[in-house]
């Protein structure tokens, strides 16, 4: 009886909740829009600088993450769906791409081509496949394991890879924690740094390596998804996803607005044994200062120990940089050459502030270092609702084609874009 009464009295509450929900569905936030949109070939729904155009080469791919393009115009896309779809091979026919084949029973993110091999990662291993002189995988069954058993504790477990010109492959091992609070309760040092939160370096020509066979090349990096080798100064550049929840964990030190803007998403130029300072420090892109983290004696004002590596450039909080590419082509105007494109997947941890990112940014470079303010290069991926579940598309991986076109994957809607320039 009491239960029933309570239920009756709750009815108006249900009604109100229902009304709120119903109204929410009428707003442009409606997720169902995503199933009915058609990509427009005139710009593919993207806004770009004048002279640039975009086409959707393929749609409905199965979680396309990073990608690599051969000089013959074949596109290898790493898909997060395993089940024979781990690697999708397409050919660029100009304004459409044809699917040639697919293989690989593992998900994951990383993919790269170097010296006649296709390198691909699952969330714990690095494999390779020999390519023929046309850049085609000779036999998908002839899969070689370069490294297996890399740290994979669910959180931040995607493995991004890049190769240098000296026979090394670099892989990101993301921290399996936001800010190490559960692994460093007495603040004596974060144990996650032992087997993750850094970039590991392995020899490419040695098969069946374990994590311990590699070198911890750089540490104190919370999670890197976008990374690339900068050919101008022959150096590894990575994009770090900064920590979350400054306000939630320290409401007296950070407002929700500050917690949305901070900390910075950082670009680092790495050398061997660099330490970027996670979880002890974070970068404030507005003050251009390295700050002591609140878990380790910071108060929102105290600067960090200068021994930690400063970022090469800082970007607003939670934008989620998932792709980094140094542009070396000649198709785009001269100012883009040797600069960096960054694919910002888009934020979630800015709530209750509006979500941001969901765009492609260009960072001008000079003499191998960032030079000047970044600019939004391509926007409009998300559609009317810039939110993690409402966005129609979210940019993730980047690659440069043989003619200098720029390829962008979208792991939300499953599209593959090509951006080109015509004078």
């Amino acid at each position, binding site marked *: 009886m009491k239960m029933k009464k309570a239920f009756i*009295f*709750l009815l108006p509450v249900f009604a109100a909740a229902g009304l709120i929900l119903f109204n929410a569905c009428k707003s442009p936030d409606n997720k169902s829009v995503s199933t009915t949109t058609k990509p427009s070939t005139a710009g593919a729904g993207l806004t770009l600088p004048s002279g640039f155009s975009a086409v959707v080469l393929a749609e409905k791919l199965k979680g396309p993450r990073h990608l690599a393009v051969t000089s013959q115009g074949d596109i290898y896309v790493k898909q997060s769906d395993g089940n024979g779809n781990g690697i999708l091979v397409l050919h660029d026919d100009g304004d459409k791409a044809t699917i040639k084949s697919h293989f690989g029973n593992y998900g994951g993110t990383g993919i790269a081509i170097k010296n006649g091999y296709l390198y691909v990662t699952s969330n714990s291993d690095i494999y390779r496949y020999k390519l023929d002189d046309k850049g085609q995988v000779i036999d998908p069954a002839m899969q070689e394991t370069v490294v297996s058993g890399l740290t994979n504790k669910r959180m931040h477990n995607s493995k991004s890879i890049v190769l240098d010109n000296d026979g090394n492959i670099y892989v990101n091992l993301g921290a399996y924690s*936001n800010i190490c609070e*559960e692994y460093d309760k007495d603040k004596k040092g974060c144990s996650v740094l032992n087997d993750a939160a850094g970039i590991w370096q392995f020899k490419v020509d040695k098969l069946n390596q374990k994590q311990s066979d590699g070198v911890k090349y750089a540490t104190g990096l919370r999670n890197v998804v976008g990374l690339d080798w900068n050919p101008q100064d022959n150096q590894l550049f990575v994009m770090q996803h900064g920590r979350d929840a400054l306000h939630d964990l320290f409401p007296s030190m950070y407002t929700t607005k500050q917690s949305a803007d901070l900390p910075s998403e950082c670009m680092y130029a790495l050398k061997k044994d660099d330490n970027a300072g996670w979880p002890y420090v974070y970068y404030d892109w507005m003050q251009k200062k390295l700050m002591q983290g609140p878990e380790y004696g910071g108060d929102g004002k105290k600067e960090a120990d200068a021994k930690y590596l400063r970022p090469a450039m800082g970007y607003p909080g939670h934008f989620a940089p998932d792709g980094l590419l140094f542009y070396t082509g000649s198709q785009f105007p001269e100012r883009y050459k040797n600069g960096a494109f960054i694919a910002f997947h888009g934020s*979630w*941890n800015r709530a209750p502030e509006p979500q941001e990112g969901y765009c492609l940014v260009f960072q001008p470079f000079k003499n191998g270092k960032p030079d000047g303010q970044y600019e939004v290069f391509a926007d409009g991926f998300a559609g009317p609702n810039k939110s993690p*579940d409402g966005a129609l598309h979210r940019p993730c991986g980047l690659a440069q084609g043989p003619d200098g076109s720029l390829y962008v994957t979208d792991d939300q809607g499953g599209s593959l874009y090509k951006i080109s320039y015509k004078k």
Partner: protein
Amino acid sequence: MKRTSFLFFFATVFVAFNASAQAKRGSAAATIARGQIVYKSVCLACHMATGSGVPRLNPPLTNTTYVLGDKTALIKIVLNGFNEDVQINGQSYSNTMTPHSDLTDRQIADVLTYVRKSFGNKASSVSVAEVKKARAGNVNIGK
């Protein structure tokens, strides 16, 4: 006279009943209102204002037995956090949830009642007594 007194009696009963209805309605609505305040300050940043969560990272709070099912299990997720492989409707979610055992029994009851009755969810309330009992039987506390 007899009729008047009957009417008077009826009116009194009606007023009394209405007042008690008002009070009860007030308290249920108040629970949800308090729960929403806790939700906004503790849960919203990850699970979003609509309870949608974030694809592949933070689980949704709708259409899942984790939220709509066993209340003790749900209370323990709030108390202990969550760091397990979770599959909801074929999607997996990788972020770790931090423990929130610092919340009071009342705050946990309020916020879980709010969550179980919002975003299209229509599950029963969580009482302070249920939280107290789950906390007492929680082996992970202090871990």
